[in-house]
């Protein structure tokens, strides 16, 4: 193989070096270097051909001259979008707890109390619907453990004004509406309709809570 693959240019060059004298000669750089293009069959071309043939033989596909249909399996590594149900459930639960706290603080303001009572009723209905959806799609044994009740904080905080309470609830409505609207995009059709409906309800809450 060495005899076949050895480039002709290399042999010629070696012979030429010996002819002019490799050591002690000042003119060895004047030896004309022949172009590799003059080689009839280079080592690189030979190895490329061998390698390509072996690749086609091993894989058994990608033959450009074959008329047989080829099958390509593409595996996507992108993770599936996370269903936002549990996040929205937690958000609703948190906002409902804040409304409950606000109902206690706003008791002295009948108008604010009336608005907050209506909103609490809607948010409680949302929470019940979301919990029913969770219960519908999860097995009874996989329910989360109930956290033990914690002691109420004993620190005394000043009672906020009614306007501040309504402003806080309004901010929660804006947050929740955005979350529910975003959640419509990455869930099933039934849940999308539920989330969209709750998002629309929160839009009406914003209208009611807007300071006049």
């Amino acid at each position, binding site marked *: 193989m060495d005899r076949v693959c050895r480039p002709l240019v290399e042999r010629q060059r070696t012979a030429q070096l010996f002819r002019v004298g490799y050591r002690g000669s000042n003119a060895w750089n004047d030896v004309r270097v022949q172009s590799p293009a003059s080689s009839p069959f280079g080592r690189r071309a030979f190895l490329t051909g061998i390698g390509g043939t072996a690749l086609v033989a091993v894989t058994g596909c990608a033959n450009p001259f074959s008329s047989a249909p080829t099958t390509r399996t593409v595996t996507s590594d992108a993770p599936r979008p996370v269903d936002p149900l549990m996040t929205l459930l937690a958000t609703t639960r948190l906002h409902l707890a804040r409304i409950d706290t606000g109902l206690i603080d706003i008791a002295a303001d009948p108008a604010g109390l009336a608005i907050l009572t209506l909103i609490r009723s809607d948010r409680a209905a949302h929470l019940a619907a979301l919990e029913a959806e969770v219960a519908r799609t999860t097995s009874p044994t996989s329910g989360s453990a109930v956290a033990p009740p914690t002691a109420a904080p004993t620190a005394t905080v000043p009672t906020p004004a009614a306007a501040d309470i309504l402003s806080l609830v309004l901010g929660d409505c804006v947050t929740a509406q955005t979350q529910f609207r975003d959640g419509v995009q990455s869930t099933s*059709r039934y849940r999308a309709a539920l989330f969209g409906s709750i*998002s629309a309800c929160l839009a009406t809450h914003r*209208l009611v809570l807007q300071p006049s």
Partner: protein
Amino acid sequence: MTTPLTEPTAPGTVPAQTAPAGTAPPGTDPASTAPAASVGPIEPEAVAALQQALAAEHAAIWTYGYIGAFDKDQLDVNRIATYTQQHVVTRDGSIDLITGVAGTPVRTEVAYALPVEVTDDPSTSRALAAVIESDCTKGWRFVIGSTDNAFLRDFAVAALSDSAVRQTAWKLVDPAVTPNPLVPFPGASTP
């Protein structure tokens, strides 16, 4: 719910010049064909739901024109003008979506049977307006639950929210008539 007084007409039998004002004939302007490239495919059941929502929008526009002849309260007049324009925008968007998937959008009817008798008392106009907005919320919620298309879902959620807000706004005008202006699940058949 507002129901058309006449039988639904076949879309192909209606002359093109009877199209609602402000709407170009489908497929003749770039805007009506623009959604096809960006929206993506829409399921047949979603197109059917979209047609129902569009029919509700037609009814709402017609009804606002009707109550505008009775309700002379200045705030209500302004409200009617604003809300009519919002419904026109939603209707045109719906028509573009349907024509974008080579569908034929339903057309408005000549007249509709009203569920509330409208008199010179503005409260009757407001009650009717709240009913037609409720009809629209039902149509758009149905659209959301009929499709996996992200663009259509977003469009329907926006339309659903707008109708729910308008419905609440009408109820807020007469708190004595409707003590609770809120609906926990707008568009749901059983609130």
